[in-house]
């Protein structure tokens, strides 16, 4: 469990850095990228929070 949660976090951080780099470097439509970034980070934050809570209770 411990390793998988760290692996998940590492995957998310690396993938987010890569995506953010592409959105910043090649952006064409600022409004659309801004909206995409907002949706991406909001849903990701919810999913990470839920995963963290479940991880906490599962490891009790």
């Amino acid at each position, binding site marked *: 469990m411990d390793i998988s949660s760290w692996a*998940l976090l590492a995957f998310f951080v690396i993938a987010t850095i*890569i995506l953010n780099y*592409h959105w910043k470097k090649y952006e064409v439509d600022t409004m659309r990228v801004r909206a*995409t970034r907002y949706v991406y980070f909001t849903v*990701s934050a919810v999913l*990470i929070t839920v*995963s963290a809570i*479940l991880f906490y209770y599962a490891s009790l």
Partner: protein
Amino acid sequence: MIDLYPEEKIILIERKHWLPISIEGLSFSMAGILPFLAIGIADSLPQSIKLVIDHYRLNYLFFSSAWLLVIWVLFFMAWTKYYLDIFIVTTKRIVDINQISLFSRDVSEMKLEHIQDINYKVNGLLASLMKFGDVHIQSAGEKNEFVIRNISNPDKLCEAISKQHLESLKG
């Protein structure tokens, strides 16, 4: 996105049609909700699987939400690839940016005055209804033909290129 020459203006930016990315999105969402569906239908699953799900319910839920996060990130990678795969018509040239993967891009351009022939093909009922098709542009340059596949509104794109081509010949 591209460096423009002095006095060059972007006329049109077109992307591939949204249908392929929507189908991809649908596949991702189905893959994402699959572990949660298993909880819903746990009663009808074999007893051994049901026992594992019941016994490790919290662990199972953790892995399901982690799986959903991975799917979410993978979908955005696919969307970014779709978003960055574009075709640009400017007052001086046409630029085809083919995003093969996140770190692999193929950028080709053609000067408007080199265009010799342009046509588009809409194949099939779905393509006709959803208004997407392939645009073929022949040139006198090194790269003889440009083929832009599954582009939205190929008729408008052809029209815009032809108009700009005529203006570039006048100018």
